[in-house]
């Protein structure tokens, strides 16, 4: 308990420092102005979300082949944490887009991919809530998770192809390319902080799921007597 509070405090300080750096250390971007500051949170969250879904895929595969409940716990934890990060991406995105593009949303490749990704994992969690029996829920949701993750590159390629067929709004070149040094330091720190947050959340959620399972186990044993 003390240890996790300690870790959370460190992470909180780190995020606060990073936010400070992003606002006051990194220079203001010329064409977009101060709104560009959201970039640090936006991109780092997107990265964490992708990592979380990757972990979910790994856990799903592992569950199918080992049938250990622990893999199921990891799967559901990663999916939920990934969805939390993708929500940050989907909320900060329009906030950033509106002043810069003049619109909140456009069905461009990256936005559509993020949206579909979010939907896939919402479906994954919904499916879990619709199956009572734990073994069956773990197996079927793991199988759906595998199919869903395999879909991600297909969605990406199809959208990229689709978007090159159509006119699209003018979007600035991808961030990261030729980033100003102070911006890069701020970004890397934010990336580190959010990866830390990912690990912390994942760990906490996993422990919660493990506790749930042991409560279930105790209840079962109490019923036997």
């Amino acid at each position, binding site marked *: 308990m003390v240890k996790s509070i300690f870790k959370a405090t460190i992470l909180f300080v780190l995020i606060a420092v990073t936010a400070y750096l992003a606002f006051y250390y990194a220079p203001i971007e010329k064409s977009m102005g101060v709104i560009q500051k959201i970039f640090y949170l936006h991109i780092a969250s997107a990265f964490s979300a992708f990592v979380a879904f990757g972990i979910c895929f790994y856990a799903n595969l592992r569950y199918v082949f080992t049938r250990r409940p622990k893999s199921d716990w990891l799967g559901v934890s990663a999916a939920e944490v990934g969805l939390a990060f993708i929500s940050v991406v989907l909320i900060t995105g329009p906030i950033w887009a509106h002043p810069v593009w003049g619109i909140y949303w456009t069905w461009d490749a990256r936005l559509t991919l993020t949206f579909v990704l979010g939907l896939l994992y919402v479906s994954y969690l919904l499916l879990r809530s619709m199956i009572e029996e734990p*073994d069956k829920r773990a197996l079927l949701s793991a199988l759906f998770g595998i199919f869903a993750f395999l879909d991600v590159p297909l969605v990406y390629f199809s959208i990229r192809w689709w978007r090159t067929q159509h006119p699209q709004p003018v979007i600035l070149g991808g961030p990261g390319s030729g980033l100003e040094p102070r911006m890069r330091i701020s970004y890397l720190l934010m990336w580190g902080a959010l990866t830390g947050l990912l690990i912390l959340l994942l760990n906490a959620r996993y422990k919660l799921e493990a506790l749930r399972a042991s409560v279930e186990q105790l209840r079962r044993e109490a019923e036997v007597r």
Partner: protein
Amino acid sequence: MTWQGFSSTGIRFENIEKRYGSLYALRRVTLEIGAGECVAFAGRNGSGKTTLLRIAARLVRPSAGSISFSGSTGNDRRDDGGGVNPPLQADAPMGFVAHATMVYDELTAEENLLLFAKLQGIAEPAARAASLLDEVGLLDRRNSLVRTFSRGMRQRVAIARALLNEPCVLLLDEPATGLDPEGINWLEKTLRHTREAGRTILMSVHGESEISALATRAVRLDAGSVVADTRAGANMHSILTFAGA
């Protein structure tokens, strides 16, 4: 493929456990069933009879424990029970009669038997289907849809389906359900032949009947555990009719 050498097969359940969520369907069931035995499982609804039969049929994977077959070639038996992919097809042919009929209502009796005979790779499916239809007394209704059958007739088709591959182990979940007295006589005769041919029979029964009288051994399950097990005729009566539970 011939099974002449394996016409009798024993089954060994070892510490079989099955959980459905927080419910235990079976708790550490260990049973050794010899080749050629005819075992009647008694117990209230929900005592684990159906689950045990489905595990024996390899339709359900046990949560823990293992099941092994003696007299079979045993090449791909795994004894870890919780193994990832226990092969559904046991080495020795098995027949399974479940609560549900396991046949298609939208197909005729003959089409059903032909379908499963072909899937099971039986040599002359048409001849086998015809002979079984004759055996279960449905030859004149062979071209009627199962949907139009009475419960008893459906049960006959279900039993015919289970007998298609001349099983070494016959698993029956309350096989007398829905049968009229004439049907029960027929089932009794069929099972007696099966038993006398040295085949192993596992069946769940509901109280004493002509069918349970065929048993050479009675096992009582309660809340997923074996609570009584006997081969002595006098004790069998009390196990099968045990009303105190």
